[in-house]
């Protein structure tokens, strides 16, 4: 089994593009990835595409073939849906296909169009990632679900809104200079604490924005990279996926995400690494508390110990474990179906040295991406390593 190489990556600007169709967004990201890779589109053997709410946002199902033709690829294409982990799930399938020899060249990516809906419509659309009968009908929103997790965390381990605000401040600072990011500006703890409440204890600055955007990457086998003399030194060396009960109330605990633990355990074992080997991480901070739960779930901190990581500088860009140097979902934005592969794109650039924050992790050789769906009923974790 030989690990696939990341030959190229591409992103659109993440932000408000209400008039742009998902096919238009994906064309930009996909062609950027193909150009970055230097791969002939005629060599692509499949498109693995993540999208969550296409039916609601633009009355468009069956998006796979649409995206293949948008990037000039004549090959089978499938859409993967796993809520906010849709393109993480697509990535995992693509990695496994290259590994088992089914394909030498695949395009993986995702797109989401969201801002053409108003806030209430988007809130309703995102809520379908939760249990409709027993959660959504009972008034639970997606921010509300993460607020339940945050309140349970505070009750069990302590922690304050200020601790969460420090995570938002960190991720906003990391997005400055990221040309793809929705918010390329710093904020203060006071800004976050003074913002309107969305679902107590989470305020507006604890939440990722509503975002349009697309992401793509070209995965190739090692032999294809060698034969075509590609500059593809970053490999996906580990993949893992975890699952959990759909509804929060059916889980053993509200302040833990065992699906992320299972995904990380599998991915780290697959890559033959431990948490101590990881130089940089992109984690699914759809809400500030989600970054805490992700880092604890993957084993970087014991339960109850991750809440202060940003405030104490451990996860800031000059800390021991820089987290979300892209700006994270919080500041880079969260076009739901595009997020998983956008994390792959950001980590690839960080490892190969052409990321806007590369100077802060110049010796980095191992990166980890954590992508979560719903209230982490689905999770994927991928390990990227430099393999010259």
């Amino acid at each position, binding site marked *: 089994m030989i690990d696939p190489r990341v030959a190229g990556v591409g992103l659109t600007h993440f932000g408000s593009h209400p008039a742009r169709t998902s096919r238009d967004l994906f064309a930009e990201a996909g062609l950027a990835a193909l150009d970055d890779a230097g791969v002939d589109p005629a060599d692509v053997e499949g498109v693995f595409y993540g999208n969550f709410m296409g039916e609601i946002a633009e009355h468009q199902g069956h998006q796979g073939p649409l995206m293949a033709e948008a990037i000039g690829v004549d090959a089978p294409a499938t859409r993967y849906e796993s809520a906010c982990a849709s393109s993480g799930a697509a990535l995992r399938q693509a990695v496994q296909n290259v590994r088992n020899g089914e394909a030498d060249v695949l395009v993986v990516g995702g797109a989401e169009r969201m801002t053409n809906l108003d806030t209430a419509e988007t809130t*309703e659309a995102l809520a379908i990632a939760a249990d409709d009968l027993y959660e959504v009908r*009972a*008034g639970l*929103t997606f921010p*509300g679900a993460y*607020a*339940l997790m945050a309140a349970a965390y505070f009750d069990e381990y302590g922690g304050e809104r200020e601790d969460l605000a420090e995570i938002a401040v960190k991720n906003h600072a990391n997005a400055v200079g990221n040309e793809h990011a929705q918010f390329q500006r710093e904020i203060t703890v006071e800004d976050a604490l003074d913002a309107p409440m969305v679902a107590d204890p989470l305020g507006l600055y604890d939440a990722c924005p509503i975002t349009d955007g697309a992401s793509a990457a070209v995965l190739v086998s090692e032999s294809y990279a060698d034969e075509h003399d590609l500059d593809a030194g970053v490999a996906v060396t580990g993949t893992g996926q975890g699952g959990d009960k759909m509804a929060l109330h*059916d889980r053993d605990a509200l302040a833990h995400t065992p699906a992320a633990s299972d995904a990380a355990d599998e991915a780290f074992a697959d890559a033959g690494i431990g948490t101590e080997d990881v130089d940089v991480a992109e984690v699914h901070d759809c809400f500030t508390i989600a970054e805490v739960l992700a880092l604890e779930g993957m084993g970087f901190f014991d339960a109850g110990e991750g809440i202060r990581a940003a405030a104490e500088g451990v996860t800031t860009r000059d800390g021991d474990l820089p987290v979300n140097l892209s700006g994270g979902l919080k500041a880079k934005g969260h076009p739901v179906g595009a997020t998983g592969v956008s994390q792959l794109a950001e980590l690839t650039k960080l490892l190969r040295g052409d990321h806007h924050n590369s100077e802060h992790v110049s010796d980095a050789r191992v990166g980890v991406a954590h992508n979560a769906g719903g209230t982490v009923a689905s999770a994927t974790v991928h390990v990227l390593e430099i393999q010259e």
Partner: protein
Amino acid sequence: MNDGHDEFLDALESGDGYYLECTDGHGSLPPRVVCPHCGDRDLTETALPDTGSIDSYTVVHVPTPAFADEAPYVTAVADFGPVRLTGRVLADEESVEIGDEVSASVGGADESRSVVFEPR
């Protein structure tokens, strides 16, 4: 119409709430044919305890369109022993605390019916 869910709400509304119990004592909510915790297929309707306690709650300020006239409102997960429920708490947001005891009933009408909690 949602078979299983509708009957669950009917029963809860008339004061005869139940959950599905497997032979190992795990609780879950209908419709189900398999215990989601252990895979047991022997499920029986068991009376829902009268009193639960709030495990976590949030005050929702930005609602879905269905709850546009309700916001801000309190949504909680409450522990009824073998099973937990999610519902709106029919109480002032300032008065709700984790650990509070609640009973479960049904609010709304027709398609918008859902679980609600009342402080005890």
